């Protein structure tokens, strides 16, 4: 069952990239070509992941290999369950596929970067960071427990921070890096709290043990509400990492990083980690949590698609498109289309990585020009890039014969049937409108970049097709965007291998009372999520979905043609006619303004207020008293009065004050003293008279 070869292969896959990072770090920049070593290690790692993929998909399908060891363990007082924190990996088909996808894209990005980053002064370090990222990402994929998930979660955050801020001389890059890390941390806090709830309840971080615990009827703090809360809290981690509304603001800024990094981290893999997390915890999500997730996903998809319509930076458009697609996946999980979510994750990883690398190729050719208004007509200069870009665009729009069609239609069908079963129609409505929007802005991008007349002739003249190391990955990814890798019938999402063969949809473990009735499989004794009611709804959904999405695609592409190829419609006039709508989209719904103006500024203001409080109130309990002490000291004597602020300061003031007056009694006149003595005597007599 637990094939040690799988363990070794997994460990090789996992650790070689970090070995590459270590290699680069410890060479301290003294070895010029150290990046080659790193890439070789990646290649080995890729091969090893291929082995695992083959094993899990073909040799031993349906077998989950688990390896674990005890990391931290200690007793927790008499009569309590000892704490035993186990780290470990669990390899099933989902893991294997994602691991392969990560490794493949990572490897391609490495190759692409050799040319793209050529001449950068921190060239070697760049590859080190890529290695670190790949390691962290694989850790997320392989883990069999929440703690390790959290650990690698943070580590990808770190590598993302390092890579976004790779050109830290630019303030915008440094800002973006910081923003990415901090915004992610917000989600991470939620995730951490969710993990805490689960750990407190079940005493373990391991997924399978937690699920077993829930399945046995034990609930966090004996409440289904807390189970929902735990699910949502853990999901918050995904909200951060997968840039879901309202924490999506970091991802567009993250485009400050080198473009291959955007392709790898901020399009294909890391941002999909959130979706992967939800996949992992899917079985413990209650109905309420799922609706929450679905709504967040749908909103994200819709909001970012509207923003993408008006963006002019090629990478920003792609970034919002990424957010939108991630919203799709999250929404898909929310509505229970489990396999399609993962399916879309993989297809999206390939075509979105392709889109970014393609944009990288364009940017490289245009000498770091990113504004699509300054491009145009590039298809003649860069045919490879153009055709691969076209393939990706078709895939993301879900045009038949592409991978995107299969996965996206499955998702839309899922939302449609979800609407049918639960009445939550908002989700499919948003989902379908996104189809329209996506097709429009993607074709807008394609047209403005590659068609029409060059806007900047000077740059156009110098543009050229990218060299082999950059072009090759584009081709590979374009090929992977075609349907036949995923299923033989290009029109039937349900018969794609992902759904029909490779991915087993697990049954929910939540109590029936907090699950959707159509997902309760215990009654039928099924192993799978889908009971008859659900399956039937999906069947009903398929045909209308396909028709509708195709229709929307055609409308959108048609509009894009009218706007940007035939110029029958003028986008500028439209924008001028609806300035509020246009600006709302262009300024990204004013999220950044709100966050900066209210939250960041507010926190900073509050912190200065607290510092002032600390300095003047706590440290000088009464600021006034410190001032007075100084004043008195200046007036009365030349010596440096020892006064200490804070509580002590206050005392010093009182003391000093008293001391000063006590001193005044000491007039130097002996008769005064004697009067005082007699006065004291009288006082004492009065006090002590019996």
């Amino acid at each position, binding site marked *: 069952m637990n094939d040690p070869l799988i363990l070794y292969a997994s460990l090789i896959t996992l650790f070689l990239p970090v070995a590459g990072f270590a290699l680069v770090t410890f060479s301290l920049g003294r070895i010029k070509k150290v990046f080659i070593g790193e890439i070789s290690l990646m290649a080995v790692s890729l091969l090893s992941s291929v082995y695992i993929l083959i094993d899990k998909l073909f040799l031993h399908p349906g077998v989950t290999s688990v390896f674990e060891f005890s990391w931290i363990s200690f007793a927790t007082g008499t009569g309590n369950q000892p704490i035993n924190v186990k780290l470990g990996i669990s390899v099933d088909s989902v893991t294997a596929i994602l691991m392969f996808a990560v490794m493949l894209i990572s490897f391609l990005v490495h190759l692409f970067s050799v040319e793209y980053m050529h001449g950068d002064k921190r060239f070697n370090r760049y590859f080190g960071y890529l290695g670190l990222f790949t390691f962290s990402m694989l850790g997320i994929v392989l883990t069999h427990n929440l703690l390790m998930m959290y650990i690698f979660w943070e580590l990808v955050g770190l590598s993302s921070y390092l890579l976004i801020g790779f050109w830290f001389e630019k303030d915008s890059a440094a800002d973006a890096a910081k923003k990415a890390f901090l915004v992610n941390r917000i989600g991470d806090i939620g995730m951490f709290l969710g993990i805490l709830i689960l750990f407190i309840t079940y005493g373990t971080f391991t997924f399978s043990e937690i699920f077993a615990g829930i399945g046995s009827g034990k609930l966090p703090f004996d409440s289904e509400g807390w189970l929902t809360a735990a699910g949502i809290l853990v999901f918050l981690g995904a909200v951060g990492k997968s840039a879901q509304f309202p924490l999506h603001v970091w991802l567009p800024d993250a485009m400050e990083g080198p473009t291959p990094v955007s392709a790898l981290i901020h399009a294909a893999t890391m941002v999909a980690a959130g979706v992967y997390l939800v996949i992992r915890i899917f079985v413990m999500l209650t109905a309420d949590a799922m609706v929450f997730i679905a709504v967040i996903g749908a909103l994200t998809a819709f909001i970012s698609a509207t923003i993408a319509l008006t963006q002019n930076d090629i990478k920003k458009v792609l970034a919002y498109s990424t957010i939108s697609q991630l919203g799709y996946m999250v929404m898909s999980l929310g509505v229970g289309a489990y396999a399609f979510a993962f399916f879309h994750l993989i297809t999206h990883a390939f075509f979105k990585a392709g889109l970014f690398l393609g944009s990288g190729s364009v940017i490289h050719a245009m000498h770091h020009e990113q504004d699509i208004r300054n491009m145009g007509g590039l298809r003649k200069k860069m045919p490879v890039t153009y055709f691969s870009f076209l393939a990706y665009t078709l895939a993301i729009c879900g045009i038949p014969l592409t991978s995107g069609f299969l996965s996206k239609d499955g998702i839309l069908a899922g939302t449609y049937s979800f609407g049918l079963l639960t009445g939550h129609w908002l989700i499919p409505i948003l989902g379908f409108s996104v189809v329209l929007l996506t097709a429009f802005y993607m074709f807008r991008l394609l047209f403005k970049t590659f068609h029409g007349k060059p806007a900047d002739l000077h740059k156009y003249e110098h543009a050229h097709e990218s060299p082999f190391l950059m072009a090759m990955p584009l081709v590979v990814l374009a090929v992977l965007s075609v349907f036949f890798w995923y299923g033989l019938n290009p029109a039937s999402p349900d018969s794609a291998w992902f759904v029909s063969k490779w991915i087993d949809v697990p049954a929910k473990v939540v109590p029936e009372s907090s699950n959707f009735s159509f997902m309760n499989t215990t009654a039928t004794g099924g192993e799978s999520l889908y009971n008859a009611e659900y399956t039937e709804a999906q069947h009903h959904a398929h045909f209308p979905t396909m028709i509708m999405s195709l229709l929307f695609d055609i409308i959108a592409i048609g509009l894009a043609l009218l706007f940007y190829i035939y110029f029958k419609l003028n986008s500028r006039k439209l924008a001028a006619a609806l300035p509020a709508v246009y600006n709302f989209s262009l300024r990204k719904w004013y999220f950044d303004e709100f966050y900066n103006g209210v939250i960041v500024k507010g926190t900073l203001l509050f912190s200065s207020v607290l510092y002032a409080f600390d300095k003047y109130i706590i440290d000088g309990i009464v600021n006034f008293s410190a001032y007075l002490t100084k004043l008195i000291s200046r007036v009365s004597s030349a010596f440096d009065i020892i006064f200490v602020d804070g509580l002590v300061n206050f005392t010093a003031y009182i003391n000093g004050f008293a001391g000063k007056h006590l001193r005044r009694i000491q007039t*130097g006149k002996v008769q005064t003293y004697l*009067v005082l003595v007699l006065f004291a005597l009288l006082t004492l007599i009065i006090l002590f008279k019996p």
Partner: protein
Amino acid sequence: MESMSVGLTHFLVLSSLLFSLGIYGILTRKNAVLVLMGVELVLNSANINFIAFSRFGNFGYDGQLMALFVIVLAAAEAAIALAIVLNIYKSFHNVNVDEIDKLKE
């Protein structure tokens, strides 16, 4: 009690008066010598007490003994004090106690 005879109370009144006068003198006189005279009054008021108590209380001779000691000591004290006053006169050229106040803070 015979109205005309001199009793303990009279002595006590006398001594109290002397004591008060002495204290008054100490506190109000400027001249150090006069201050010292005030001290003498205080000591003597105590002496009157001792002797009066000794006589009227039938306490034996302790009180009278005490008075004798006090007289001797008062003399010694006066001698020393006057010497000090003389010393002060040399330094300050006056003996007004309220002007001798250099040591203070």
